[in-house]
């Protein structure tokens, strides 16, 4: 999975003015610093819109959601842009449980 990700998305890539970053596996307190760094690199590309592909996330906790909320806040502050999530069922359930789902733009994923 690590190799595949590096081949297709080396820390996020731009597609038609949209920076794209893919996170997978655990998005929890144990891994959040790495996830935060990956999202940060995508934000640093300066695009107004960022798509975060979360379809491969197997577990997300409050810290993982905080990473996404933080990215959304930074993006809005810097460019006024939007953070769009491509989420699976696990992520959607966590966003609903924490009542944060309305804070994000969502695009079709397996959990939609």
């Amino acid at each position, binding site marked *: 999975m690590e190799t595949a990700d590096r081949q297709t998305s080396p820390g996020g890539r731009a597609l038609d003015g949209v920076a794209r970053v893919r996170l997978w596996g655990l998005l929890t307190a144990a891994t959040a*610093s790495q996830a935060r760094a990956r999202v940060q690199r995508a934000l640093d590309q300066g695009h107004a819109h960022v798509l975060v592909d979360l379809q491969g996330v197997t577990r997300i906790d409050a810290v993982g959601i905080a990473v996404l909320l933080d990215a959304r806040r930074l993006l809005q502050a810097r460019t006024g842009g939007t953070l769009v999530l491509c989420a699976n069922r696990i992520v959607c359930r966590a966003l609903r449980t924490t009542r944060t789902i309305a804070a994000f733009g969502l695009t079709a994923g397996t959990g939609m």
Partner: protein
Amino acid sequence: MDTPSGSHPRPAERGVVISRGTRVYLRTMTPQDLDHLSTWVDDPFLERMVGSEFMHAYKHVWDKAPAFYEAILTDPTQVALVVEAYQGWTKPVGVVRLFNIHLLEGYAFLETIIADLRAMKRGFGIEAGKLISYYGVDVLGLRRLEAKVYEYNVLSMNSLRRNGFRQEGILRQAGFDGERYWDLMIFGILRDEIEAVRRRDKVYLPLDPSEGNGREPT
């Protein structure tokens, strides 16, 4: 361990260190921690002093089942971390957690459990509470923390006050220990007050990004 970074974190069985103080550090839970938790939940003194829903759920709802570990890790409304002391301690000394986390509103509840009787009155609980408070502000973006304490738990009340919490009210006879009703004391602290404590205790530097997942300041 599958990680979104593609890096290689420390082995899951040891947990990942989240924050370090001078006496204790906080790490993520591992399945092996349930062995310790299983002992702690049978301690009547702890049950009376803390009245933890976390421990109650493990013992009475989950019947000490291993699945409790997964339930905790997949609960996006709480962060439970294990408290480890540095010198001379071979086992965890307790658990500290933020629960009922409201990320958008920016508040959560704090619970600190120092379970090893030998570890009490050594400042471990104060430091653990301090570290997770900083973590709540830095990483979760919280702006308010709240804690409830039984009126007879003077040690916990003093610990909260040492960490800058203020008593905000009393829930009259809201606690029951099996024999009689007791008042619950409500404590709270705001982000500015947490930052004031951090400035006062200069030893607690900003979290190392490699371990603490610190937020970018705006």
